[in-house]
Each structure stands twice: as C-alpha cells, then as structure tokens.
C-alpha cells in the first residue's frame, strides 16, 4: 500500500492563554488517501476548523499552538515546515475554500484577477496568460459569460457564484488536497447541492483529495468516502460512510443520526436531541468527554477515557461500549 496523501498524527491544538495552554483539539490522528473524500463531522466548537487551519498552516500563531506527532503531506511534515515552505504549498498543492463566500473575496479586486494572481504567484506565468486561464476556470465552474464576469467585482456576483469563484481559485493549480470548511453552509439550500456537485465533479477530474468539514449529515451522505466524527476536540468514531450510517457505534454518532432520521418522519412531535451541551474545554479531562450527555454511560465512562478501538475492518470508535477493558480501572 502506498503512503497516504495526508497523515495527521497525534495532533494537539492549544489556545495559548495567559494562564497556560488550553487544548482544543486533542491527539487527533487520521489519514486521507490521494483522491479520497474525508468528511470531518461534529458540532460547533469541536475543533473541525482549527484542524483544517493547522493543516494549511493558517492558525493564528499569536494565540494558537499546534503540536504533536506531525502533519505529513506528500511525505513532508507541515508542522515543522517553515513559513516560506508552507506559503509555496498553499494555493498550489494544498488549497482551501472557506465558509463565507460573501467576505472571503477581496471586495476591491476583480474576481478574474483574484484567480489569476494565484497562477502568477506559483507558476510565474505572464499576467495575460494567467488571466486567460482564469476565464477558462470561471467557465469550468459554470459562471455564464466568463470573460465578462472575470472583470466583475465580488459584490456584483451572487453568493453561489462567489463560492464557485472560490472553488475556481482553490482548484486553479489542481492541488493534491482541497480543504473545504462548511463550503455551502452560507448558501441557499437550492444552491448548496449544485455547488457541492460541481466541487465533487472537478475534484474527481483533477484527482484532488477532499477534506470536507461539515455538520450537515446530508452533505456527508452525498460526498464522503470516509467520515471522522469529532466530539470536544477528539475523534470519537471513524468509518467508511455506508458503515457509519448503517452501524453507528458511538452513542454521539447515533444521536446525530437519530436527529436527522426523525426529520424524515412526518408525524414527529419533538426532535430527538442529544441532551446537554458540549463541555467547556477548560473543565474536563477525565473519562469520556461525552459521558455527561450519554444515555448509555457506565461508571467507567466517568473514570477512564476510551481510546479509538476497532469496530470492523476500517471502522473504529472511542467508546467503552463493546470495548470494555480487560483489567478493571484503578
């Protein structure tokens, strides 16, 4: 088997505050193979976006620290790479699409130019050639009348068009990995599916792997090859998408799935919900982070933290259920 395109090993991301450091993402490990789509799922604040920013090297260095085993991308460790090396990778081999198409484009620059400058920066092509390529890319993301639209400013485009411009920009140099952080959350529901389908189609054409961050399980079902569920900064379950939907093993994953399955039933009176809220990062670190909200919690759950253990060939979960330790907790 070949080495994975991206291998995140024991990644911890901490908020460096006056009193010390507060871990927000805790010993996270996962892999993405070339051309594969991995969905990172979890509720707000669970560390999805931080993980993405750590990979692409855009964490706010003044307050955030990434540490741990490493982030290996195409064989090199991004955690120890210097700023200039990271800059050369970004936009070229490693690209990102952000959540907010309304604010993620420069309001005073023509959109064509915003695409072409990435090409000029990394390939050193002439402005004119890069502009022609930008128009071609706009055409590829189905912006009608691309040559004219390339001279538009972002405020002259709709939200969906802007996000397609972002996608064109991110895929301009056919990166090996595209990170998309809630790329359709800010869009109209009718546009969401279009944009996702377009992104997936181009990604397949270019052989680009996708790390898709979302809290929308509908999007997961549509897009993912594999899914990684995060809870309070830790991986709680990882599985190929069909297995996750068919046999979720972690109570948190089940809770998430129950919540949307009930939406499909016409006669529900009250949505199934997971009781409680995500714990504050500062207070916990004993036992399972989810224990307080878990309907199946056992005494051990409050005592000892479960580690990710196998639940099938490519399926793993971090839960004491079906994975009771051999020895009794101390």
């Amino acid at each position, binding site marked *: 088997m070949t080495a994975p395109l991206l291998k995140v090993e024991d990644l911890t991301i901490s908020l460096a505050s006056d009193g010390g450091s507060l871990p927000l993402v805790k010993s996270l490990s996962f892999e993405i193979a070339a051309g594969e789509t991995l969905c990172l799922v979890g509720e707000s604040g669970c560390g999805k976006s931080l993980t993405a920013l750590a990979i692409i090297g*855009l964490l706010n260095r003044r307050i955030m620290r990434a540490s741990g085993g490493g982030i290996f991308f195409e064989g090199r460790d991004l955690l120890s790479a210097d700023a200039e090396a990271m800059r050369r*990778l*970004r936009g070229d081999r490693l690209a990102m699409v*952000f959540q907010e198409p309304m*604010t993620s484009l*420069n309001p*005073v620059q023509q959109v064509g130019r915003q695409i072409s400058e990435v090409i000029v*920066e990394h390939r050193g092509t002439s402005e004119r050639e890069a502009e022609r390529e930008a128009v071609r890319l706009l055409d590829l993301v189905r912006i009608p009348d691309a040559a004219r639209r390339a001279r538009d400013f972002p405020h002259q485009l709709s939200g969906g068009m802007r996000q397609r411009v972002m996608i064109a920009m991110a895929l301009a140099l056919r990166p090996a990995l595209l990170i998309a952080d809630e790329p359709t959350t800010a869009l109209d529901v009718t546009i969401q599916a279009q944009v996702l389908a377009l992104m997936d189609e181009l990604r397949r054409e270019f052989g680009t792997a996708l790390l898709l961050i979302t809290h929308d399980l509908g999007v997961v079902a549509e897009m993912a090859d594999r899914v990684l569920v995060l809870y309070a900064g830790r991986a709680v379950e990882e599985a190929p998408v069909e297995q996750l939907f068919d046999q979720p093993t972690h109570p948190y994953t089940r809770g998430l799935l129950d919540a949307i399955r009930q939406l499909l039933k016409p006669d529900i009176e009250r949505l199934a919900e997971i009781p409680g809220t995500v714990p504050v990062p500062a207070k916990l670190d004993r036992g399972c982070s989810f224990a307080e909200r878990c309907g199946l919690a056992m005494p051990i759950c409050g005592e000892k933290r479960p580690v990710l253990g196998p639940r099938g060939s490519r399926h793993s979960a971090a839960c004491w259920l079906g994975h009771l330790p051999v020895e009794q907790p101390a």
Partner: protein
Amino acid sequence: MIAYVLGRLLAAIPVLSAVAAFVFLLLSLVPGDPAVVIAGDLATPEQVEAIRRSLALDRPLVERFVTWLGHMLTGDFGNSLFSGIAVSELIVQRIEPTLVLALMTIVIAVTVAVPLGLVSAYHPTGIVARLTMAGAVLGFSLPVFVVAFGLVYVFALGLGWFPVQSYVPLSEGLAGTLHSLVLPAVAVSFLYIALIARVTRAAVLEVLREDYVRTAHAKGLAARLILTRHVLRNAAVPVITIIGIGFAALLGGVVVTETVFSIPGLGRLTADSILRRDYPVVQALILLFSTVYVAVNLAVDIAYVLVDPRIRY
C-alpha cells in the same frame, strides 16, 4: 460619475454662498463703524468719510452685498487697504510658496507614514510598531516651532545643508525651491506623519482581520503582495480622508512655519492682514480657503470611488 461631479459642484454653491455672506457681514459685525476702524486712530473725519464712501458703506446693506458679490464673481476682490495692491494680485503672489510647501509636506508625510502604519499593523509587537507609536505621540505633542528651530539648529546652522530662512521662487528653478523648503516641510510633516501613520495602522489592523486576507494567505501569496494589493487598498478610504483634510488644513494653516522660516506664503499674508485689519484681503482669503476645502472634499470623494468599486454615487 460626471453627473455626480457636476451635482457635487452645484451643491458647493450654497456652501460657498453662505461663506460669502458671512465674509461680507464680517465688515458689518466689526464693533463700531468699520470706516473708523479702517481709518485708524489718527484719521480726520474727512478721511473717515472718504473711506466710508469708497467702501460704499453709506448704501443699504442688501445693495452693498449684491454689488460686492458681483465683484467677487468677476474676480474683483478689491484693493488691500494697507498696500493698495489688488487683493487678487496679492494672493497670486503669495499662493506659490504655500502650495509648494503643502504639497511637499504631504508627499513627505505620506511616503513616510503609510509604510510605517502598514508595518506597525502587520507586526503589532515589533520594533517598528513600538517606535512608530512612540514617535506618533512625540509628533502630536511637539509644537511645530520647536521642531522647526531644532531642525534649523542642526541642519542649517550646524551642518549648513539648508538655508536658515528664505524662499526661492519656482521661477528660479524647481530644485532651488525644493531645497529652500526642505526644513519647513519636514518640520510641518512631523504632525502629519503621526496622524497618517496612526490612521493607517488602525485601518490596516481592521482589514487584516478580514476573511479575504485569510483567503489571500490561503492562496500562498507573498506577504508583501498581500499587504500592498489586498490590504492597503481596502484600508485606503480613511487614509485618503485624513490626507485630504490634512492637505486642506496645510493650505490655510502654516502661519507659524511660514513665520519661522520667513516664507512669504498665504499663512503669513493671513496673519498680517488680520493684524492690519486689512478687511478686503481677509475676506478674499476666507473665501479662498473655503473653496479649497470644498474642492479637496470633492477630490476625496472621487478618490473613494476610484479605490472601492462598491462605492457608487
């Protein structure tokens, strides 16, 4: 755009009319009989009467205003009471040094302050930021005449690089003019460097937090390119505003500097005319400064449209 400019020019008419009315009334607002005031302490009643008639002060107020306004519109600002020279000629003589000094000051200030503000915002804890912010406090609090005398002491008296005083007119060559204005321009620019650097820093800090700056980083652009192409242009509106106001203020407000360096500019003309109660000159100068403010404001608004395509009028 052309329609907008025309509209703005039309809108300037009421503003300037109000200023004109005020300037005209200035003479009537002076305590006592303006003719007596103008004639001075030693005048005979006949002289006072002659002045009154020459200024048409014996006519009704409205008639005087209309006549006066007519003269203004045709460019006839009357004669100086002090020297007898036509006011328009006096102003033309004096406007050159002031204009060159103001332009030079603004160019120096912008060239120094904008990069300083940019770097201070990008590295907020760096050495440049610390020095700039400390220097800004100094720039705000040091009176211009202190800076001016300090510069004269070191660079004119000490090193002899520049003249202590005097102004070389443009007719004798641009290089000589610029050389004679280096010290005054640097002296006045201290305050403007402080002002523009602070405004630039604040505006850039705000833009650096924007999502599109993160996008630019995600594209792997070089930091220098991000700062100049993406950040600076978005931070330009407040910076342009402060530069515009600064320039307008410079045209009317360099009295101290012109005095210290003995530059025959508008600032000194204004101060001298007020002291001599040379009302026609004062009136014309106030009108001129108001017009400059209106023009600079218009220029600033047009600049907004050029830097930010979202702004449309």
